[in-house]
C-alpha cells in the first residue's frame, strides 16, 4: 500500500506502517523492527510487581460497596480451611467451593472440569446453603477455584496450565501470570480478619491412598460436612486435570511466587515454592483469552 505522505527520510515509517504497528502487527520493514519491539515491551503483560496493590484495591472496592440489605455473610471471611495432607485437588476444589458456602452444584457447572464436576455432584447432595451467594455466580465460583488453586500451590505442586479450571482462572485473571495475584487478592477477606488456617506445607510424596481423607478443619456449612464425610469415595478423580506430573515446569510460576507479596501480609506457610522452575518457557502459551 502506498501512502502519499511517505518520505524516504521517514525510515519507511509511513503513517500506514505506524498505525499497523500500533495495532500490534509485525513490522514489514526493517526500520520498523526496533519500534515494534519498543511497543511490544511497553505493552508487556503485567507482572506481579505491578499488581501488588490488588488486595488494597479490592479492600477499597468492598468498602465502597455499601448495599443495605446485603447479607453479611460469615462465609465471606472463610478462608483456607483445608489441610492438604493428601493434596487431592478434586477434594480441595470441591471442599474449597463448599466452604465458601456459596454454591449450588449448578453454579459450578461451567467452571469445573468434568471429572471434578461429577464428583462435585456426588458430593453436593446436601441442600444448597442458605446463605446469599452475592450478586453474581462469577464471584463465588472464582473464589472456590482460587481456594483450590492456592491450596494446591501450597502443596508444592504446579497446576497444569492445560487444566480447564486453571484456564478458567487464567481467563478471569487476564493471563496465567496473574492467577496468583488474582486469587490472593480475592481470598483476602477483609483487612482485619485474615485468620488463615495454617495449611500443611509438606508435599505429597506418593499418590494418596484410597482412604485419603481431606481433613477439613472448620466447617461453617452443612455441605462441607458432607464433603468431609464422603470425600473418601473418589479421591482420585479429577486430580489429573490439574497436574499430571506434579512438579513439572509447565507452569511459569512467575506470578505464583509473587502472590504472598500481593496480599501485603504473607502468612504462615506462604513461602515461595522452592521447586519453582528457574527458567520459564521463552514463549508461554497464552491459550486463555488470546485473540490472536
Amino acid at each position, binding site marked *: 500500500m502506498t501512502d502519499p505522505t511517505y518520505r524516504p527520510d521517514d525510515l519507511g515509517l509511513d503513517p500506514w506502517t505506524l498505525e499497523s504497528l500500533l495495532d*500490534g502487527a509485525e513490522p514489514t520493514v526493517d526500520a520498523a523492527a526496533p519500534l515494534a519491539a519498543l511497543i*511490544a515491551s511497553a505493552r508487556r503483560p503485567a507482572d506481579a510487581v505491578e499488581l501488588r496493590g490488588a488486595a488494597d484495591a479490592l479492600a477499597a472496592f468492598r468498602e465502597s460497596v455499601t448495599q443495605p440489605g446485603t447479607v453479611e455473610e460469615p462465609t465471606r471471611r472463610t478462608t483456607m480451611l483445608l489441610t492438604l495432607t493428601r493434596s487431592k485437588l478434586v477434594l480441595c476444589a470441591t471442599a474449597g467451593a463448599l466452604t465458601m458456602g456459596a454454591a449450588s452444584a449448578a453454579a459450578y457447572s461451567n467452571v469445573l472440569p468434568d471429572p471434578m464436576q461429577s464428583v462435585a455432584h456426588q458430593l453436593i447432595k446436601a441442600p444448597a446453603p442458605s446463605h446469599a451467594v452475592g450478586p453474581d455466580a462469577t464471584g463465588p465460583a472464582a473464589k472456590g477455584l482460587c481456594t483450590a488453586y492456592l491450596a494446591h500451590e501450597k502443596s508444592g505442586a504446579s497446576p497444569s496450565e492445560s487444566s480447564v479450571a486453571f484456564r478458567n482462572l487464567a481467563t478471569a485473571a487476564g493471563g496465567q501470570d496473574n492467577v496468583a495475584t488474582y486469587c490472593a487478592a480475592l481470598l483476602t477477606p477483609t483487612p482485619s480478619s485474615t485468620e488463615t488456617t495454617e495449611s500443611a506445607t509438606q508435599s505429597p510424596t506418593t499418590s494418596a491412598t484410597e482412604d485419603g481423607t481431606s481433613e477439613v478443619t472448620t466447617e461453617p456449612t452443612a455441605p462441607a460436612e458432607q464433603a468431609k464425610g464422603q470425600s473418601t469415595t473418589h479421591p482420585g478423580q479429577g486430580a489429573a486435570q490439574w497436574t499430571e506430573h506434579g512438579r513439572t515446569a509447565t507452569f511459569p*510460576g512467575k506470578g505464583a511466587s509473587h502472590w504472598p507479596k500481593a496480599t501485603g501480609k504473607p502468612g504462615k506457610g506462604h513461602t515461595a515454592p522452592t521447586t519453582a522452575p528457574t527458567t520459564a518457557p521463552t514463549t508461554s502459551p497464552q491459550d486463555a483469552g488470546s485473540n490472536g
Partner: protein
Amino acid sequence: MPRFGRDVTLVTVDGDQFAADLSAAQAGDDAAFLRLWLQTHPVLLRFLAVRAPDVAEDVASETWLAALPQLKDFEGTEGGFRGWLVTIARHKLVDVRRRSARRPEVLGATPMTEEPRVPDAAELAAERQATEDALRLIATLPTDVAEMVALRVVVGLDVGEVAAVVGKRPGTVRVAVHRGLRRLAATLAEQHADAGVTLELASTIQGRHD
C-alpha cells in the same frame, strides 16, 4: 498472528468480558471488580510512569480511590473506561504536583523494580527492564507528545479516545503520535548504531532476527 512472542498484550481488550465485568462490578461483585482492576491498573501505572515516574504508584492509588464512588455511574467501552481513569489520573497528577513541587517531571527511576527477588528473577528482570526502558524512552519526547504516544501505545486508546483525554482534535493527535513514533525510531536507530547497543530492547530485536 503472534505479536512478538506474546499473544496477549496489556492493551488486548475483550469488549464482551469488559461489559460483563463492569456491570457485575457496578452491582458490587468484587471478583468482577478485581478483573477490571487487573486489566486496567498496570496500564494506568505505565501511563503514569511516562508522565511522572516518581509518583506513579501514589497517583494510581488516588485515582482508583477517586473513581470508586463514581464507578456505578460509568457507562462506556473499555477504551472509555481507561480514558476515564486516565482523565482522573491527570487531575490527580496536577494535585500532587501542586502539593509537592519538589521534583520536576524528569526521567527517573520508576518505582517498579523494588523487589525483584524471585526464582526466575533474571528473565523477569530483563523483561521488566525492557518495559521500563521503553517507557523511559517515550518519556524523552516532548511532554504532550509523550503523553499522546503513551495513551496510544501503552493505554491502548484509539485516536478519538486520546483526543478526548487530551482535548485536542483527532487529526492533531494522529500526526503528533506519528511524529513521536518516528522520533523514537530514529533514537533507537542511533542507539543501535552506537557500539554499545545497551538497551535490552536491542537484544530483543537481535533475538528476533537470529
